């Protein structure tokens, strides 16, 4: 075990050198690193949100909302389909995950079934299409009741595409916040994890994430006063919506102005080309200017031509932002939304309009935000604990094994350098539990050396010569060390697969720590001892 071929020595030294190279950037400031030549590695350990401060927000796409919206559209499709063929029906409703309709004249039933069957479509997602699954299932009973129910596959595919679309929209919105390196990932079937480091105002992020931003332009229904509609019942194709809250003067919804708005959407936010916060040149109040794309501009021109003198409503997420009266046809495709805005809320609205609407409602199911102060304190505490712990271990190893203890300590330093180098190379995230993992590795890393040294002593006590005992010590301890470390490694891997954020950071330092430990004990430490033997030719064991 003590003979090293030259190429092996080279390999060990190269590995150590690389570890050093990759761990070094962590010691320097960003500026110094940028001045280094290009061929040098520059990756630093990425600090986790718990260390640098920031927000971790987990959002869930609400399945119920998606089902409701989809059923509403299906209901409309069924109505259109039946009307096209002039089939009489009653009780068209969407409930319990299905659209129901009763055909008046049973002689039309077969025709109605055939017509509605065209609405049953295969699930579009390629992953789901294996079994020829359809989005809806059709059920027709003898007494004229037709039921069009959403299937599990259909709902699954809708949720999946809603998550993908939401990811895009959220990415655009968060990018507008101008923070560095936000991370937005899909998690599981219906969740999105948003991590934004170094954020000063997490509440604003939350507002931006939670707003659906479904912007619609609709006509105000003037057939009835909104107050009357509230007390009695609004007309079938209209609904009562309230004015949006004034951020400077928050009030309960019931104290705000109600509007009776037509349900039919004339133009939606999808057709916007751009939106910018600006100031009204006359009143000097913050407003949002917008521009439609070509088809939106055409629609807008047509609508304004037909409805001169009538009020229309700009509705955002079921709240009326403003309801101006159309004074003249607007043909340029651009306009201004004025409401009760502050400069910031006008800016946020423009951001939301540009980024587009979320396809579904998102709920925050988990939130963890850490202020920059706590993160800094945690790093300091972790560093001090690490240095004190390492010094204590190093001192103890020297007291216990003398010169061999020093060899073990050098190997320990190499181990830590390698660990940090590998973590930097992988771009792994260092969390507070991760620091704990490194400190723990320091404590447990010497185990390999202890096992070897104790074995050497034992072999020596049995009467082997110094060199033979050292050789046997390394050889015999190898199996034990591998077995012992593989078991810990298994636990670390499982921890990693379970883990979220900080816990995952701990698992990865622990797992990599095990690998570097075995390497530093069996390559580097053994190399040191072998070199020492070559030069000193010892006759007595110094441990």
């Amino acid at each position, binding site marked *: 075990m003590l003979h090293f071929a030259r190429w092996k020595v080279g390999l060990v030294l190269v590995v150590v050198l690389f570890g050093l190279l990759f761990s070094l950037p962590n010691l320097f400031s960003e500026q110094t690193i940028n001045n280094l030549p290009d061929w040098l590695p520059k990756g630093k350990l990425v600090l986790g949100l718990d260390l640098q401060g920031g927000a971790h927000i987990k959002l*869930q796409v*609400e399945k119920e909302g998606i089902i409701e919206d989809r059923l509403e559209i299906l209901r409309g499709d069924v109505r259109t389909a039946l009307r096209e063929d002039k089939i009489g029906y009653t009780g068209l409703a969407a409930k319990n995950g299905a659209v129901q309709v009763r055909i008046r004249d049973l002689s039309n039933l077969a025709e109605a079934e055939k017509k509605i069957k065209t609405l049953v479509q295969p699930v579009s997602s390629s992953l789901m299409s294996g079994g020829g699954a359809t989005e809806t299932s059709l059920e027709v009973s003898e007494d004229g009741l037709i039921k069009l129910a959403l299937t599990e596959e259909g709902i699954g595919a809708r949720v999946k595409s809603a998550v993908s679309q939401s990811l895009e929209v959220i990415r655009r919105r968060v990018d507008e916040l101008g923070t560095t390196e936000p991370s937005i990932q899909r998690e599981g079937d219906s969740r999105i994890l948003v991590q934004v480091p170094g954020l000063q105002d*997490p509440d604003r992020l939350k507002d931006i994430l939670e707003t659906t931003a479904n912007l619609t332009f609709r006509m105000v229904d003037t057939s009835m006063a909104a107050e009357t509609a509230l007390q009695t019942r609004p007309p079938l194709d209209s609904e009562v919506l309230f004015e949006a809250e004034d951020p400077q003067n928050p009030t309960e919804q019931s104290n705000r102005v109600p509007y009776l708005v037509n349900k039919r959407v004339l133009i939606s936010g999808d057709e916007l080309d751009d939106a910018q916060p600006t100031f009204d040149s006359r009143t000097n109040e913050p407003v949002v200017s917008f521009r439609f794309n070509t088809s939106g501009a055409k629609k807008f021109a047509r609508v304004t031509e037909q409805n001169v003198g009538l009020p229309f409503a700009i509705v955002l997420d079921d709240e009326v932002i403003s309801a101006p009266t159309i004074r003249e046809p607007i043909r340029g495709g651009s306009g201004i939304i004025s409401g009760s805005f502050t400069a910031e809320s006008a800016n946020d609205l423009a951001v939301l309009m540009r980024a587009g609407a979320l396809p579904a409602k998102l*709920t925050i*199911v*988990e*939130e*963890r*935000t*850490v*202020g920059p102060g*706590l993160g800094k304190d945690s790093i300091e*505490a*972790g560093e*001090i*604990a690490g240095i*004190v*712990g*390492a010094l*204590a*271990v190093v001192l*103890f190893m020297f*007291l*216990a094994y*003398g010169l061999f*203890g020093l060899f073990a300590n050098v190997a320990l330093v190499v181990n830590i350098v390698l660990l940090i180098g590998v973590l930097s190379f992988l771009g792994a995230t260092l969390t*507070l*539990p991760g620091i*704990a993992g490194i*400190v*723990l590795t*320091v*404590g*447990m890393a*010497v*185990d390999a050396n*202890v*096992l070897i040294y*104790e074995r050497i002593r*034992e072999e020596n*006590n049995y009467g082997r010569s110094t060199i033979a005992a050292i050789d046997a010590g390394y050889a*015999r301890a190898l*199996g*034990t060390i591998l077995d*012992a470390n593989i*078991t*810990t490694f*298994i*636990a*670390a891997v*499982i*921890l990693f697969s*379970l*883990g*979220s954020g*900080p*816990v995952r950071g*701990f*698992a990865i330092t*622990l797992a990599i720590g095990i690998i570097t430990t075995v390497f530093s004990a069996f390559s580097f430490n053994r190399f040191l001892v072998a070199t020492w033997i070559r030069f000193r030719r010892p006759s007595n064991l110094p441990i």
Partner: protein
Amino acid sequence: MKPIRIIPDGTNIHFMKHRFWSFPLSGTLVVASIIMFLVAGLNYGIDFKGGTLIEIQTAEEVADLGNIRGKLNALDLGDVEVQEFGAPNDVLIRVEAQGGDGEDAELAQQQVVDLVKETLGNTVTYRRVEVVGPRVSGELATTGTISVLAALFAVLVYIWFRFEWQFALGAVIATAHDVILTIGIFALLQIEFNLTTIAAILTIVGYSLNDTVVVYDRIREDLRKYKKMPLRQVLDQAINQTLSRTTLTSFTTLLALGSLYFLGGEVIRSFTFAMIWGVFVGTYSSIFIAAPLLIFLSLRSEQVQSPAETDEAGNVSAP
């Protein structure tokens, strides 16, 4: 300079005799832990129970906990805990999960943060805000439990593959013992049990197994080397041979953990506490539980083992 030794050379303790007290002791502790767990329960953190955790730092040198508590109780948010956290002006506020189903519960949870921030105003610094909704906390509890069981199972398979089945079973029993005692102490002292505690338990699983495997490895080696030696004598000898290493490694690990416990900050203190406890329990169990278990699992056939039964005086020495 002569290196110091914790365990003198030639130490020969008859560990196998100690099983007559260690097994009843461990059995009692395991049962007591389970009873504590069932009766007192664990002090689950928001990771598993859902709820809100807010860490604030007040402008004044010493936070007026009574005042904060009074203000927050007036909000009628259910169970609110207010406690000092590390420094006199550092305060940890815990608000229990709010009622309701699905989406409503999540929204209610979010409102708690807004309400607390409104009440305490801008004079305090919000160092940390954690909100875990009911759906996520339920899942975290499930994955946490599954991961501990999966780790035990994966290791069982690995040791089975590398050793004989008695070793695998012995190691898993000893490790399960450590996990149960750790849960027991958390139930007894009512220390907060959260996601990082699960991480600590899994690390304890790793550490304890590491220790057990080192002892087992030597037992296996000695069993091959001394084919005629009674099992009990082999076990004693193997433990004595590895005793120095066991204590040294435990000691260096405790040095590192102790430094983390005292200097590493309040956030990871319960995590390090669990680890320190785990090192003690894990070291104890590999010597006093894992090794003697092999006698019960009749690792060696009775015929070879029988001479040892006559050798109760214990006058054996390593060859």
